[in-house]
């Protein structure tokens, strides 16, 4: 269920973002809002549904990018693994923790995309000068999404059967 919800949300957010980038006339800065969903999938979903969700987020981002190359699914999966491992030692289930992870994911995404592009393409590479601004607005977008993500998570908890057996008196 989470996979479907996250995929739908990704499509809506990407559509909205593509229009907002035009309205606000951003030159290179992008709101990496779908990375919030990857952080959510890594820190608050089960391993399988989180991994599939992260892959689908990357896949859709790739499709929306205009020139799909499989770079985005690879990047979102790398971010998923990094956050999944880090979330074992740093709390990501509260607002500040989530904001921290979203910021880290934005930086990591920019670095992965630049490095892989540098490895496979000749000519000038996209500048990284826009990353600090991108981190700021993506973290802000993450905070706006926080209540909705909380609802998705509570839906998942409700769907799961309780591991504690009920004992009738």
């Amino acid at each position: 269920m989470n996979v479907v919800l996250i995929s739908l949300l990704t499509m809506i957010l990407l559509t909205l973002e593509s229009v907002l980038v035009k309205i606000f006339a951003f030159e290179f800065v992008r709101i990496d809002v779908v990375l919030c969903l990857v952080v959510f999938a890594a820190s608050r979903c089960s391993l399988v549904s989180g991994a599939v969700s992260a892959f689908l987020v990357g896949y859709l981002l790739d499709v929306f990018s205009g020139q799909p190359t499989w770079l985005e699914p690879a990047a979102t999966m790398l971010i998923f693994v990094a956050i999944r491992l880090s979330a074992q030692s740093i709390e990501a289930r509260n607002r500040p923790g989530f904001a921290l992870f979203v910021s880290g994911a934005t930086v990591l995404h920019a670095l992965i995309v630049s490095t892989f592009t540098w490895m496979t393409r000749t000519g000038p590479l996209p500048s990284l000068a826009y990353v600090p601004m991108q981190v700021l607005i993506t973290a802000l977008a993450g905070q706006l999404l926080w209540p909705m993500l909380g609802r998705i998570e509570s839906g998942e908890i409700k769907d799961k059967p309780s591991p504690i057996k009920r004992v009738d008196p």
Partner: protein
Amino acid sequence: VLAFLKRHRDIVLVVVLLVAPLGRYFISGHRGRDLNPVDRLALGLASPLQSALSSFFGQVQNGFESYAALRGAHEAKQLCQTSLSQAAAELNSLREARAENERLKSIVAYVEPTIEQEIIARVIGFNPTSLIQSVRIDRGENHGVRVGMPVVTPEGVVGQVIRVVGSSSDVMLISDAQSHAGAMVQRTRVRATVSGSGAGWNPSVDLIKREEDLQMSDVLITAGTDGVFPAGLNLGKIIEVTRPNVGMFYLAKLKPGVDFHRLEEVIVLPMTLTQGPP
């Protein structure tokens, strides 16, 4: 092996989801892949929503701008009247030039290239990733748009169609790092190449020899030598020019004639126009 895979199937799934796209990316590199039915479905679903949202936000923005514009309407009117008088004078001299041009053409038996139907399209969104500088337009293969077609506005060159689905297309801007266009300095007729710099909307101007004459505010037009853009379209103005102490060529930046911030409607040109005059 099967028992191991069964026991660790969750981890195996994660590894497959990570390695598969990574492998595909390194095999196909930056060339990109063809769209499959899933991609087409996703883009087909998003396109009407994008169009509706773009229209809605556009109307809201126009409303605010119209209100703001009213505040300086009187001064703007006077400015317009002055500009109109100047334009009328300029138009008159252009008419003279055209008449002369027609006479000269008839002397040298110049044949106009056949002009196919141009396609007017609306920009409905920007690329949500910064890796590629592209915009989405609301005309696709259903309307006759094909990959490789040049896209322009009356102000100049916008870019080139790089992907087409049913009712939408993606247009790579001339500022994208992968974009190259054959250019010519309008004043001196010196050839150059305009390439996206990857660090902003101002492309760089390459391959102009340091012996040539290049100045600030020189206008660059398309040369028609790249097989994409027809000759004579406005590319922009030189805003930065340096003659380095070493090296053969100038280092220059171009301010595109088109303001990408305010891109609303564009014209998709048929590919036959890219063949220059005989």
